[in-house]
């Protein structure tokens, strides 16, 4: 049987990029929610959590409206890159990003809020700027929960179906991720291909989660040399 492995590689690449973006964005939003008081804070919190409760089609629809070729964002994107965002593999990244972001924000916020406030106070009395406090104290202290959350986010990004289908479509060789390919194979009556892809994605997910669990459970890595 001639198997096209493109959907698997695409999915892994999309999920990896989406996870990196989600971690960066998630850390920032979680830090804001945990440390700052501002108007609309609870609204932002709810907004970030929406993808958890929305049907994927609804989230996909919103993104389609916001990022489509006639939307302001879509036009700017197209003007810069020369290509539309929707129905490209980059759109799949956006889909996976929004699909996995709530998970990261929720657990990162909880992790930041559970830090003993005396660590932050100590850092401040010792003359640390807020930025240094974040990089040198807050981030290392939430490293493990964030790592665990990003593994889950990666798995979730890997498994996104609905949102991807809505804004990236199902273009074989371009935007067809593995979950979409499985759907395609089932619809086309190609049972053996569907079975193979399902087994592959199951194994990959399991391996990633096991690996991540082991890594996130490791104690603070010892650095070989002193800091200075």
């Amino acid at each position, binding site marked *: 049987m001639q198997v096209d492995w493109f959907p698997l590689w695409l999915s892994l690449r999309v999920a990896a990029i989406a996870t990196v973006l989600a971690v960066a964005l998630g850390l920032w939003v979680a830090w804001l929610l945990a440390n700052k008081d501002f108007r609309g804070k609870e609204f932002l919190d709810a907004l970030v959590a929406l993808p958890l409760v929305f049907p994927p089609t609804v989230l996909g629809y919103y993104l389609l409206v916001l990022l489509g070729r006639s939307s302001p964002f879509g036009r700017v994107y197209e003007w810069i890159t020369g290509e539309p965002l929707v129905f490209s593999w980059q759109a799949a990244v956006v889909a996976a990003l929004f699909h996995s972001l709530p998970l990261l924000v929720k657990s990162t916020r909880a992790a930041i809020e559970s830090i*003993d406030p*005396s*660590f932050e106070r*100590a850092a*401040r009395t*010792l*003359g*640390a700027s807020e930025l240094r406090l974040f990089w040198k104290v807050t981030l290392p202290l939430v490293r493990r929960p964030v790592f665990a959350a990003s593994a889950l986010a990666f798995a979730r990004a890997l498994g996104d179906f609905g949102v991807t289908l809505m804004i990236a479509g199902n273009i074989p060789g371009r935007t067809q991720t593995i979950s979409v390919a499985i759907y395609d194979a089932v619809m086309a009556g190609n049972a053996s291909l569907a079975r193979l892809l399902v087994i592959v994605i199951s194994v990959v997910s399991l391996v990633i989660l096991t690996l991540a669990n082991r890594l996130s459970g490791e104690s603070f890595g010892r650095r070989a040399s002193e800091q*200075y």
Partner: protein
Amino acid sequence: MIHARIRKQFPAGSESAGFRLDLEFQAAEGVAILFGASGAGKTLTLDCIAGFVKPDEGRILLDDRILFDAAAGVNRRPRERQCGYVFQNYALFPHMTLRQNLAFAVERLPRHRRRQKVNEMVERFRLAEVAGRRPHELSGGQKQRCSIARALIGGGSGGPKILLLDEPAQGLDAPLRSELFEVLRQVQEEFSIPILLVTHSLEECFELGGRMHIVRQGHLVQSGTPREIFEKPANLDVARLLGAYNLLPVEIRALDPGRNASRLRFREFDLAGPYFPGRLIGDRVSLCILPQTLRATPRNGLPGPNQTPLGLERVVEMPGRVRMEFEGGVLVEMPGRDFHAHGQVRFWNVEFPREEMRIL
């Protein structure tokens, strides 16, 4: 030198009573102690000085720098205040070695100065052997020395101008406590900055000496050396807080300034005391007297002058002495050997020495 005048109001909430912090004090080089019960506002005062909490009104001056001035709208950020703060849980960063913890505080210095300062502190606080370890690998005493060293090294360019300690001896066992006192005495000698510490233990106050400021419900009620305060508690609240006295309800029956004498009614007995100025006959007051100064003797016939017959209810063995608890809540302490020489006796005469009597 620190001079703080702090006011902060916490309105009563649905589940909490209101609280008002309103105190003013100054402290020069040496140890100053904020003493009070939990919830009196001691730690809140430290937090206002360090800049974690913003007072409503007042002014905080450290040396000649204004840290906070409500009227002028000055409120420096904690990192600009040059206050070393030793947290109750030490707050050593768990992901850094001891050396890195110290280095964190001097990162604004040039590299060679940094290394020099860290090494100096490591030497001074006897941390050389464990400098490469993380906090969870250290003993309690090492953690404590490290947190004090870190607070003293940092606080901006010139090192801290004051050391703040939040209940440093809380929850420590006896050897660790005496080690802490030792380290603080060392700090007092080697760094000429005020050391302001919060405690509710009388032992700490006497160990460290210095000046004691008694805080009660957000207000300063008495200041002085531990000895002065212990000998003359300003009022009943202070005496209760110190917790070392018999505080017995008595009524003043007679006052004679000419002969420097008074008569006090305690239960159904009269006691002869010195003259108490500013009191009136008929006043119901508290007789404040140390348990060590009362003398108990097994009852043999009638009580002598200034003796009250009392029944013994309970005896508590303490190191080298016993505490006898009599009816009416009278406590008497005597050396264990003297007590045991008397054997099992139920009824005693308790003598109130005239010169030790004080009323509040």
